[in-house]
């Protein structure tokens, strides 16, 4: 980026199936307070607030950022609300970075949340489109054919998805904020009920309550401390049309273009060697193998082989989702920002028990829509 921009504070809630100890404002505030504390800043230091969440039907409140202005510390400040489907958490953080990059804002608070226990995700995520038969199968029903297409295209063996799911759960065991942490084996996953072929119950993301907040700031603030910042080396959000004949839904062009844009900005020539860890958006197990290819970590058809070798496990070549990722924690609107925030924590060296060694560059990634929206950033330990 032309003007250096950094993440200087990260805060997230303990995620869970039902945070009944908190109202929505309380949940959001838990993350905001932690981010401010982390950055050593007060609300008065914040110039603008950028909020993101997935469809408002999830909680049944239209444009809830309006009633949350107080909890967000947004009173008498610019407040923008982003919504780009599943990628929203990531595109929201990137929108905050654009504020600082413009030179008009020095310190921006960005927040994403979802309190799924207040609604019904299956209903909220089953859009009724004109001239299209309603699927009423939620996101899993929508994406299962994409996974099936990947398996068919690459001849991946059926244990790959379960391996990914079991590994994610093992990773989540090292993350104090994760929702699902109970250990499980590949066999457990394979014995769990099939929900949407080829996706089984234990290969599916949960519905979570949770929030995350980041403070994005200019160079002067980042150098002031109190902590080592995560420098945003490249960030972008891209989207592509749905009804394009021949559109590759398994490895969408928007994902490739977005990754290329971000890598070019960040000076990443070979992501497999130049990036030390990646937090990528994997709501259903197979997507980990799919995105390894789409993001250029592996050649086409090779993603599942990296998984089969265990290259993406914690402590191996490229730990993917060391936090446990979306498969273990999924407050939908926040899930993308959690990926970007976790990537920031990794380059800051503050990821706790799931810290990957010697991280110079980390990727944070999210996608949404019918695999149409992509938003990602590469953060670095140096500006």
């Amino acid at each position, binding site marked *: 980026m032309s003007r250096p921009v950094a993440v200087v504070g990260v805060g997230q809630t303990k995620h869970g199936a039902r945070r009944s100890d908190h109202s929505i404002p309380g949940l959001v505030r838990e993350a905001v307070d932690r981010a401010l504390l982390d950055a050593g800043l007060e609300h008065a230091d914040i110039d603008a607030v950028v909020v993101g969440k997935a469809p408002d039907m999830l909680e049944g409140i239209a444009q809830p950022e309006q009633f949350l*202005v107080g909890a967000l510390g947004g009173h008498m400040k*610019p407040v923008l609300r982003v919504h780009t489907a599943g990628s929203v958490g990531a595109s929201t953080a990137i929108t905050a970075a654009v504020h600082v990059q413009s030179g008009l804002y020095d310190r921006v608070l960005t927040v994403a949340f979802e309190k799924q226990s207040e609604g019904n995700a299956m209903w909220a995520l089953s859009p009724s489109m004109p001239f299209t038969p309603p699927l009423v199968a939620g996101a899993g029903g929508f994406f299962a054919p994409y996974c099936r297409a990947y398996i068919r295209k690459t001849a991946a063996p059926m244990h790959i998805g379960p391996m990914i799911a079991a590994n994610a759960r093992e990773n989540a065991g090292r993350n104090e904020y994760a929702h699902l942490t109970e250990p499980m084996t590949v066999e457990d996953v394979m014995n769990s009920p099939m929900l949407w072929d080829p996706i089984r119950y234990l290969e599916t993301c949960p519905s979570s309550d949770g929030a995350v907040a980041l403070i994005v700031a200019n160079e002067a603030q980042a150098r002031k401390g109190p902590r080592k910042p995560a420098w945003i080396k490249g960030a972008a959000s891209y989207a592509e049309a749905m009804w394009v004949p021949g559109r590759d839904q398994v490895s969408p*062009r928007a994902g490739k273009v977005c990754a290329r844009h971000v890598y070019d900005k960040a000076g990443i020539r070979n992501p497999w060697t130049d990036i030390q860890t990646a937090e990528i958006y994997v709501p259903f197990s197979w997507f980990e193998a799919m995105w390894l290819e789409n993001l250029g970590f592996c050649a086409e058809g090779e993603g599942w082989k990296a998984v089969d070798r265990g290259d993406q496990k914690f402590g191996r070549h490229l730990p993917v989702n060391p936090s446990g990722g979306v498969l273990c924690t999924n407050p939908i609107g926040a899930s993308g920002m959690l990926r970007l925030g976790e990537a920031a924590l990794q380059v800051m060296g503050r990821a706790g028990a799931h810290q990957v060694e010697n991280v110079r560059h980390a990727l944070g990634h999210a996608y949404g829509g019918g695999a149409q929206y992509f938003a990602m950033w590469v953060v670095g330990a140096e500006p």
Partner: protein
Amino acid sequence: MTTKLRNVAVVGFAQLPVVARDEHRMATEMLYPVVREALAQVGVERDAIDYQVSASTDYMDGRPFGFVAALDVMGSWPPRQDLHLEMDGAFAAYYAWLKIQTGEVDTAMVATHGKVSEGEPDRVFNLQLEPYYHAAIGLDPTSTSALQASAFMARTGTTDADLARVAARSRAAGTRNPDAQLREAASAESLQRTPFKVRPLRDGYLPPIGETATCLVLAAEGKAETLCDRPAWIHGTHHISELQTIGARDLTRSASARLAAEKALAMAGLASAREVDLVELLATNPVEEFILLDALGLEARSGGGSGPAINPSGGPLCAHPIMSTGSIRLGEAFRQLAGRAGERQVAKAARAIAHGAQGHCLQQNVVFVLGTERRWS
């Protein structure tokens, strides 16, 4: 201001005439022709636009991810740098301007849609309210506006007749706007005889809710001149939110509109809003207009007098397509400065203010100051 800003202009604007209900088209079918028309105005194909922002709200669309369908008609192939804001288009335009300030993109398209006739806005926007106490008692945008109007009238002594005169002025202006939904003049006396929707707001003081789609094109200096013979340069802009909590605000004033206006005017290098030739305000009733004029430091006027023309398009009282109403204010300011405002053209318009708002009782406000000349050399 230590940051060197780029001169950025509105170079194109297209909308469909606002109607209560477009029986024959769904939202994307309405959006497609305006995207095409906006591109035709600037004489380029979609590939020449670097960035796109869409603005809409799922709840008004009546389904999750309503905006995803807009990607297709916005020409999102090959993939585009993109963002969607769950906000009125005027806020999306602010963000497009901000994105251009980074220097990473030079041109942007801002599209809005909303098939308002498929829902019941008063019921839908009840759901914007704080869910535990406010939404539950059944408040809606009309009733919260009525609370605001009562408070304002009590504080200032503004009368029912004053409201009627503002509404009549808007209605007269609307007759000159082919894109307006209400194009019949109405006298203050007749409007004052319309029944109360929610006291003190009468049917005649409330906007017709309609639907449309809009598309703005913004461009930075260097590109703007090649896309438009008379760009409307953005001299200053800012937006501010305040608490929603109705009981915690002075409803008779808009602190957020005032601060947004102060910042936008300062960026524009203007001492006062009186220095502009026209203002287009997203005022959904006469009291909101009074409050916004006060925030801008302008005198309330029902017609004639000196000072900038107020809502020469007829404003939201003649057409209020939710989510697009703010975009239209910016589009109208562009049309005025570009000399494309037809019968409603303000003579020698060189500077304009466009205002957008959303949320109950003017919770969030965005202000643009525009001019026919570049702001920064």
